[in-house]
């Protein structure tokens, strides 16, 4: 087995792809606080995700999602949900930017585990250009949904 494959499919990714954090029924119109939702699709393989982000009064973020896709995309959504429950809005925006950069690094940078948590395990993905979109799918949905939530917060 090539080490590239082991780097791509790290145990933490395989684990997240099986027990998926945040993978829960969507609330849709029933969501309580300021929230947003986004539906993203990867046209190449048909992977899709629908994700809701909600900001509660104390600034905490809750993420719920439902989707269908490969282990990379499902694990990524799970890791994202975990991080969202542990970080502030600003923290998540920072993580999102760093994750984005990591994915486009083609293996030239190593993810900072302090900041990225389990998302650092995705550094191997950046060497597989065809899989970068898989890893980013939920993050694109999250950024969109969070943006909506922030907007409705300001209103």
């Amino acid at each position: 087995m090539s080490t590239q494959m082991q780097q791509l499919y790290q145990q933490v990714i395989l684990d997240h792809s099986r027990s998926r954090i945040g993978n829960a029924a969507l609330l849709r119109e029933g969501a309580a606080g300021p929230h947003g939702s986004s539906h993203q699709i990867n046209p190449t393989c048909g992977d899709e995700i629908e994700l809701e982000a909600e900001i509660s009064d104390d600034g905490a973020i809750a993420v719920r999602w439902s989707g269908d896709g490969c282990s990379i995309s499902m694990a990524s959504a799970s890791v994202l949900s975990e991080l969202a429950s542990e970080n502030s809005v600003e923290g998540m925006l920072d993580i999102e930017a760093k994750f984005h950069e990591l994915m486009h690094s083609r293996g030239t940078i190593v993810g900072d585990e302090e900041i990225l948590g389990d998302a650092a395990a995705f550094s191997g993905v950046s060497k597989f250009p065809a899989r970068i979109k898989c890893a980013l799918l939920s993050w694109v949905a999250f950024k969109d949904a969070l943006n909506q939530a922030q907007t409705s917060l300001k209103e």
Partner: protein
Amino acid sequence: MFSRLRNDFPILDTRVGESSLSYLDSGATSQKPQCVIDTFTEYYSQRNAAVHRGAHSLAVMATDAFEAGREAVADLVGGAPEQVVWTKNATEALNVVALGIDRASHGFGGEAAQCFSLGPADSIVVTEMEHHANLVPWQQLAQSTGAQLRWLPVTDAGELDLSDLESIVDETTKVFAFTHVSNVLGTINPVDTLVARARQVGALVVLDACQSVPHMPVNFVDLDVDFAAFSAHKALGPTGLGTLWGKTDLLNSLPPVLTGGSMITTVTMEDSAFMDAPQRFEAGTQPVAEVAAFTTAVNYLAEVGLEKIFDHERELAGVLLDGIAKIPGITVLGAADNRIGTVAFDVDGVHAHDVGQYLDSQGVAVRVGHHCAQPLHRRFGVTATTRASTYLYNNTEDCEQFLAALAEVRPFFGVQ
């Protein structure tokens, strides 16, 4: 013979990491023999020029090469050279027909094009197993003309369900467009039955021959279709070239879609008159080097023999299907007997994208996703599958390398 000709394809010697390459993605695009590759060098070093123009010697040689291609294709699929129209790919070829009908329905092409005119009382029929290239253009045509889009469903066995053929293809049907061979299931469709029904109701028949022409003997005249489309790149030829084949009188009355130079007779500032087919549909500078290379490819295929290629691939299909049946947790989509060496399957508990990634790590190149056939995948309750597809250069070892790797997929991802 088939073991020898494998050496003609330089890319098959590629190493993928520590493995040799087992290329089982010819359904997407085929690899090229050295003679086809060499044609590019030869063409650009010795006879590159604009065709059908200019009196100089290079232009004459280029024009000869360009027109010889039509003859080679006509020898392969039947009909006369002027029935062979060059396009950029099969998708353009299908669009030329659909959009030509659209233009005819909006008054272009005058009296002669009236036979193509569609309206809200008419219907267009496709099938549930179409590639998007033979579905989306017809959806667009239906939207543009108000015609109704209908389709033949697919059975669990991966064959066309013909039980309602007579009510689906009825007197309102003006166009019946279907694929000769499914690019996902490998199923060879009963063209005869479908054409016979189309003739009963007077519908035009448009055949998507992308997956048949490269893999089996096909004669469009014998099949009695009106239009047919296929791509060079799936048949040992280059990228950037496709073929639209049509009956001469239909081609000459179908309004052209792309307009410009080299397809006109007289142009004033106000108006233009168009040439007959094939030039009618060949606006602007054409893929001349590509035609030269494809001519080499077609001659290569003819020399090997399509009948033999078909038999060879059926043998490989047997190896693939038998081998897959022995691996737990794999479900093949469709089980048609009458098939080519294309096999799409679902691996229980592992997403196709991950399956493909693992196979690649073992040197096996397959395709994953919806293979441009989302409705068909939806019909089988999946969003994506893994597809192995053979060609004349594949051998039993390729299949075994694939099967050995496939057996390891579920263990690797910890699924049992």
